């Protein structure tokens, strides 16, 4: 759905690398997400190639195929069909110590079409110890709504909304010692237009309703501005391993404050294997206009019950194993790896309740007294990478 699309667009814009063009490579990935009643799977193909000594071009093809139904679909019985295809192309130009980069991303799913363009300039300085990057990203979204007409799911002809996004980024990477590298990253995002979901609704306490509440439309602000600051340290452990620590602070005009902490350990083993273990802790405070159950109808100007805006914390544990191999007959391939990755994400919501309990068993669970929702999800990736 739309939040997925927005997220994907933000992240597909990879910043430029300074001083050196990206290495030539091709990756083919299969991804699978299972959790909260839904399964999302699909491919991601990435190719990066130098043209001459100063240009590099890249392309990515990505798909999400969604099956089953999430808690939102079960709650409101909205129609369900989902396949999202994302295509992107980028180019980088290197002149001396400066890299200029530009790219386009197109994302299409039945009820959401998004186009993004991005630009960045990256500069090496202070004897190549420092890299400063400025970036700008612009997105244009078209939002539709699926409805069922004559048993077929189509776009609702009366519903067509737009959203615009601008992201400004400043990034500084600093080599601190022979074994330590640090990064500071800042991003300012602004959105305007239709920022809500066409399918989700809020609920308010309603004594007239046997289940204790009634549903109503959400009302979202028409703008959003956010700041994100992150800092990262990566350390080379003397016996040949890498340790990474990363922290991000997020705050926005919707009242959300979030902290992210990640730790990662990479251990190569002998000649072929590389193992990776990581843990991610995320904590977020709710948006100011979020509530799981509003006290009465029309409680405030803005109201939302999207669990992405709720207060929650999550822990994600990940492991990855990578095997390096060579293909004797294809000498133009310098290095190949096959990788399997598994992540387990566990989210505990602090103020979002599982409304399916009151929907399907109103006698036992009154609205507002359902257990807090928890989401456990598994992410699985299998990919091969070739460097040439």
């Amino acid at each position: 759905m739309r939040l997925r699309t927005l997220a994907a667009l933000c992240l597909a814009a990879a910043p430029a690398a300074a001083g050196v063009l990206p290495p030539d490579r091709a990756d083919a990935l299969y991804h699978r997400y299972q959790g909260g009643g839904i399964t999302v799977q699909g491919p991601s193909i990435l190719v990066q190639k130098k043209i001459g000594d100063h240009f590099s071009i890249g392309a990515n093809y990505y798909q999400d195929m969604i099956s089953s139904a999430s808690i939102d679909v079960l709650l409101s019985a909205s129609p369900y069909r989902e396949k999202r295809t994302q295509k992107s192309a980028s180019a980088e130009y290197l002149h001396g110590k400066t890299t200029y980069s530009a790219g386009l991303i197109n994302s299409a799913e039945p009820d959401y079409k998004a186009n993004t363009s991005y630009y960045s300039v990256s500069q090496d300085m202070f004897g190549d110890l420092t890299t400063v990057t400025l970036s700008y990203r612009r997105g244009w979204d078209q939002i539709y709504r699926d409805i069922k007409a004559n048993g077929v799911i189509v776009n609702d002809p009366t519903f067509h909304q737009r959203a615009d996004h601008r992201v400004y980024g400043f990034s500084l990477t600093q080599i601190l010692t022979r074994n330590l590298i640090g990064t500071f990253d800042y991003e300012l995002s602004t959105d305007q237009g239709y920022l809500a979901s066409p399918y989700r609704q809020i609920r308010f306490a309603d004594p007239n309703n046997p289940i204790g509440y009634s549903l109503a439309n959400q009302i979202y602000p028409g703008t959003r501005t956010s700041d994100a600051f992150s800092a990262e340290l990566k350390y080379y452990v003397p016996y040949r391993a890498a340790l990474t620590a990363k922290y991000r602070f997020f705050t926005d005009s919707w009242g959300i404050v979030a902290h992210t902490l990640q730790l990662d350990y990479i251990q190569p083993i002998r000649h072929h294997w590389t193992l990776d273990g990581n843990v991610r802790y995320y904590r977020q405070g709710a948006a100011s206009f979020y509530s799981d159950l509003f006290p009465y109808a029309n409680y405030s100007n803005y109201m939302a019950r999207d669990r992405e805006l709720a207060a929650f914390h999550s822990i994600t544990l990940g492991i990855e194993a990578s095997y390096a191999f060579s293909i004797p007959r294809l000498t133009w391939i310098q290095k190949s790896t096959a990788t399997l990755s598994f992540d387990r994400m566990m989210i505990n919501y602090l103020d979002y309740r599982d409304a399916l309990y009151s929907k399907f068993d109103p006698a036992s669970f009154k609205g507002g007294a359902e257990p807090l929702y928890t989401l456990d999800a598994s992410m699985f990736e299998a990919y091969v990478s070739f460097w040439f």
Partner: protein
Amino acid sequence: MRITALLLAAALLALVTGCAPIQPWVKPYEREHLADAIMALDRNPVSSTYLNHVFESREGARGATGGVGGGCGCN
């Protein structure tokens, strides 16, 4: 306002580097560990893009997920 301040700060930084050359304390021939593949800031972009996408679509926070630089500093 914030954007303007941000950009002017970056511009100032860029100009300063031209005026006051600082001797690098990690020499180009000392970057062996930094050039190691395991020290790359984004080793597997196809995987990190995917995982960041999974997180951002379920969370309220977005942005500031990566940095570039480091490496062998060759050429």
